């Protein structure tokens, strides 16, 4: 059930931990599904990827070899899965810290990120969870919790606002061409019914303005009260579901969902 009553800091962070657990567990499970691609005969072999670190010190290279070559990396993914599942159940900063490190290690192995923005939002959420629990273990609870929830909420609002402003600057988004082109990019395997629908210029323009309008208005969820804020959050979920169905970017749905309790918490107080 979606938490609609006034959330305390502890409740908001617990919901964040639950949803982050789901998101990270799915990410680890997906990587384990395709782990053959990370073996020496696969498409992401460590013997090739490690060339990027040829200039690093022997100690750094030894650490990376010990962490990111095939077998240790698969073990790391199992650890990530176990850590994610433990996240809502075990207090303390150790588990979120380890899960955060494992997500960062995945990014380092895959030359920055494995799945772009979804990795970034996962890191934002895990970093805040880790800091909130670290603060609690040093006796600073409420202030740190509020700051950590604020960091997630601010990054979430920025993620939509920056994306919306960046699109608005381009003619191709304002006249709908960008969306028509996006659904033709073959690697996204966009369903034929959607490509057909968005090949109509008027519909593509309407859909493009809907995307830009939604992204620009999302930060209002922080300022608006009650139902209006929750409506924007519901629209956000629909937006990510549509992206998952249309472009196959399922990870974005789960990664962004994990950030929503923080925004809900702050929207109830601003």
């Amino acid at each position: 059930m979606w938490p609609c009553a006034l959330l305390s800091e502890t409740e908001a962070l617990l919901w964040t931990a639950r949803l982050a657990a789901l998101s990270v567990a799915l990410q680890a499970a997906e990587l384990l599904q395709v782990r053959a691609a990370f073996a020496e005969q696969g498409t992401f072999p460590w013997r090739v990827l490690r060339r990027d670190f040829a200039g690093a010190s022997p100690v750094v290279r030894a650490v990376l070899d010990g962490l990111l070559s095939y077998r240790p990396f698969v073990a790391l993914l199992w650890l990530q899965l176990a850590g994610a599942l433990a996240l809502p159940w075990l207090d303390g900063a150790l588990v979120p810290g380890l899960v955060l490190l494992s997500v960062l290690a995945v990014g380092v192995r895959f030359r920055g990120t494995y799945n772009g923005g979804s990795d970034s939002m996962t890191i934002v959420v895990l970093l805040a969870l880790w800091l909130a629990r670290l603060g609690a273990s040093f006796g600073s609870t409420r202030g740190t919790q509020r700051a950590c929830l604020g960091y997630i909420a601010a990054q979430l609002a920025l993620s939509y606002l920056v994306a919306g402003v960046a699109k608005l600057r381009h003619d191709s988004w304002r006249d709908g061409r960008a969306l028509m082109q996006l659904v033709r990019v073959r690697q996204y395997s966009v369903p034929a019914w959607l490509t057909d629908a968005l090949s109509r210029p008027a519909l593509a323009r309407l859909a493009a303005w809907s995307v830009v309008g939604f992204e620009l208005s999302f930060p209002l969820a922080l300022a608006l009260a009650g139902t209006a804020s929750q409506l924007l959050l519901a629209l956000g979920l629909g937006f990510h579901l549509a992206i998952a169905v249309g472009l196959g970017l399922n990870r974005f749905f789960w990664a962004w969902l994990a950030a929503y309790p923080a925004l809900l918490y702050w929207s109830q107080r601003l």
Partner: protein
Amino acid sequence: MRVLATRLARALLPSWRFFDEVEPAPKLFFRLMLSAREPAPWQPISFARPRSLRALVLNGAGNLALAEHALLEQLLSDVAEPELRTASAVEQLTSYQLVLGLARAGARARAEAAAGHAHLQFKLTLLDLSTASGAEEEDVLVSSLHEL
């Protein structure tokens, strides 16, 4: 350490500028060769994966294909660096070696076509999606011959 720091910075400082511009999409082709004089036709490698409703939850193959396709974009970005002046310097790039691996995997997946061939070549084309026909291609990188 600079590479490690750059990667961590990329992960920790997101730009959030999703799909602000839809760039021409790179496409990977390979061809098999008995010798330099006997090339087989170019064959495309597809990164599209069929998906079901289950992929809303677990989409391992689809997300791997996206990560593999991102290597093509990384290679194009790397070869645009002005200090890369020779073909051998390009071939030393990690992204080049990874794309070569993709081409080899694509060729080996078509075992019948690959049988009897000793070498392969790959090329990247840019697919301009802004044209009315929706598909104008331009070769942007053609590799030298490599062992299959």
